[in-house]
């Protein structure tokens, strides 16, 4: 299927071609940095890609004439990304952010061919000399959500709308479950994967199915506000994802995991401009401000809000680790001993469910 971006890129290519043929492009490249963002959904999804685009706009505002920013929207994960990346790199972009997990191998591959271009891949784990990685510890917010949900649930069943079963999503489910079961030891988590990041209709379908199966809490790891809206319509509690979704659940959206990429993007662009860019691995959570949670819904009883706040402060200060032992997987194997915390390297590759999550994962 042909998409809008083909035209954008085509037009960009035409502009680049004229600049090669017609105008001299000597001085321009040196003082002006061209930075591009590759988004997995539309920038108007009001969720994940929207938040990345807010970061891009913040960069543009911060550096004004010194940078030129560009976004390519709705790029499918996989081979398509390679084409877009190559085109951007040949068009003189000096810094490229690939903002979804499924762009990982393509980013590494293309980066090899363009050693002078800096690449930044979000939510992945592969780095090279000119590829840095960055991510948000979304799972820290899940601990807070799990705590709030544990108090709020009556049925003890949580419905979790997932995108695809990758570590990024699984670590959120596990962190949520661990916190949830500290309050509701008999609690169950039902997970439905919609096999994609953005399809409001399907996300709503999944939320409906979960509510029909007895869930009175809806969690989501997808990009549209549809699950929150569905929960509001059906009168069950929900947690928003990526951006503040309170407007879609005025009485039932407890809080949201809000991504804040702007400070990171500004810092990285500044490094390129200063010539100090290095391949690093950044994983910021509540303490760094990259993840924030808006004020809890006023409809949540005050004592529950207070307990949620306590969990939030504890995670933020480091007093509580989302994966503090004992952590036991579904087969009963102890993965983290009592008194220990799970190391980052293990969290990053998490591929098993903890006890309380229904269904199996196939590796």
């Amino acid at each position, binding site marked *: *299927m*042909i*998409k*809008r971006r083909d*035209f954008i890129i085509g037009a960009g290519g035409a502009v680049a071609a004229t600049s090669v043929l017609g105008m001299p492009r000597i001085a321009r490249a040196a003082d002006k940095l061209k930075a591009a963002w590759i988004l997995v*959904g*539309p*920038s*108007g*999804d*009001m969720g994940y890609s*929207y938040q990345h685009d807010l970061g891009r706009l913040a960069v543009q505002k911060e550096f004004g004439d010194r940078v030129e920013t560009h976004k390519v*929207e*709705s790029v499918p994960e996989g081979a398509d990304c390679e084409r877009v990346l190559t085109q951007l790199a040949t068009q003189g972009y000096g810094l490229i952010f690939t903002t979804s997990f499924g762009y990982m191998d393509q980013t590494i591959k293309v980066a090899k061919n363009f050693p002078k271009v800096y690449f930044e891949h979000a939510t992945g784990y592969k780095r090279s000399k000119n590829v840095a990685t960055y991510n948000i510890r979304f799972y820290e917010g899940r601990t807070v959500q799990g705590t709030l949900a544990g108090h709020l649930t009556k049925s003890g069943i949580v*419905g979790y709308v997932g995108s*695809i*079963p990758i570590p990024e999503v699984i670590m959120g489910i596990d962190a949520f479950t661990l916190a949830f079961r500290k309050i509701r030891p008999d609690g169950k988590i*039902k*997970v*439905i*994967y*919609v*096999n994609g990041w*953005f*399809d*409001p*209709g*399907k*996300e*709503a*379908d*999944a939320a*409906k*199915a*979960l509510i*029909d*199966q007895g869930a009175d809490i809806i969690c989501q790891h997808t990009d*549209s*506000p*549809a699950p929150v*809206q*569905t929960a509001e*319509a059906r009168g069950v509690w929900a947690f928003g994802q990526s951006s503040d979704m309170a*407007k*879609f659940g005025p009485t039932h959206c407890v809080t949201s995991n809000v991504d804040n990429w702007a400070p990171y993007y500004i810092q990285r662009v500044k490094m390129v401009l200063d010539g100090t860019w290095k391949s690093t691995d950044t994983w910021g959570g509540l303490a760094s401000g990259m993840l924030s949670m808006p004020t809890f819904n006023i409809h949540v009883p005050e004592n529950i809000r207070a307990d949620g706040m306590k969990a939030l402060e504890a995670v933020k200060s480091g007093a509580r680790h989302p994966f503090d032992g004992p952590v036991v997987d579904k087969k009963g194997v102890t993965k983290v001993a009592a008194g220990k915390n799970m190391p980052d390297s293990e969290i990053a590759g998490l591929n098993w469910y903890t006890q309380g999550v*229904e*269904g*199996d994962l*196939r590796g």
Partner: protein
Amino acid sequence: MHELTAILVSMVLSATPLLLAAAGELVTEKSGVLNLGVEGMMIGGAVIGFAVAWTTGSPALGFTAAALAGVALAALFGVLTLFFLANQVATGLALTIFGLGLSALIGKPYIGKPLPSLPQLYIPGVTDIPVIGPLIFGQDAIVYLSVAATVAIGWFLSRTRAGLILRSVGENHDAAHALGYPVRRIRFLAVLFGGAMSGLGGAYLSLAYTPLWSEGMTAGRGWIALALVVFATWKPWRLLFGAYLFGFFSIAQLHAQGAGVSIPPEFLSMLPYLATILVLVIISRDAKRIRLNAPAALGKVFRATA
């Protein structure tokens, strides 16, 4: 609510936008025009419907405006392909891209604004009957409209003189022209009708299904509608069946996941496509009949001779 009831009620909802768009496209294709711009017309209807409903507070006005938006986009397609004789496939694809881009532009101010959902029918006593109650007597107005429209299209195409003329134009435009039928005018009207139905289908997503606007929210449903027309071998009642079948498997696979069935979710996501194709291929496996049903002049450019 019983789980089977829940699946069936959700099935009807998820099939409705597909059914609306596909029924419109069926009429367009029966007249011999292949409009691949369904996705673009749907998203156009979705954004205009949302904008109007948001501004006026009236979902009815929203749906009306959405149908008109679909008509406007279809008119663009119709003028290009029927009067300027542009290639239908290329123009249809362009219409989809144009619709997606234009809707994103128009929709910018509406991102992040929620609308209330459509009211559902409730007849005391009747709607409370298990299974059939909520399924048949508990839906919103557009669901009933989509079924009624499909039945009406079936009747129109097979039982009326106008329907016969429309089909004859789709079978052999030169013969129809020789008989004195205004081929271009008939096709243009069929294209506009398809646009109106696609617009309604899109608006169903942004006004009833998930009452919000977000870019690209049709998420490929226009293409599914197009495929349904082919797999239903251009028969309205099979279209109805196919759309519900697709809806059923889309919803049932989610319930299966929620119930902890240990089948990989990637496979379950394929299920609606596989099952719908399989069933429709089996019920319409007679190649001769398919050839009879497919409009012979589908996608062919009409140049008036003499």
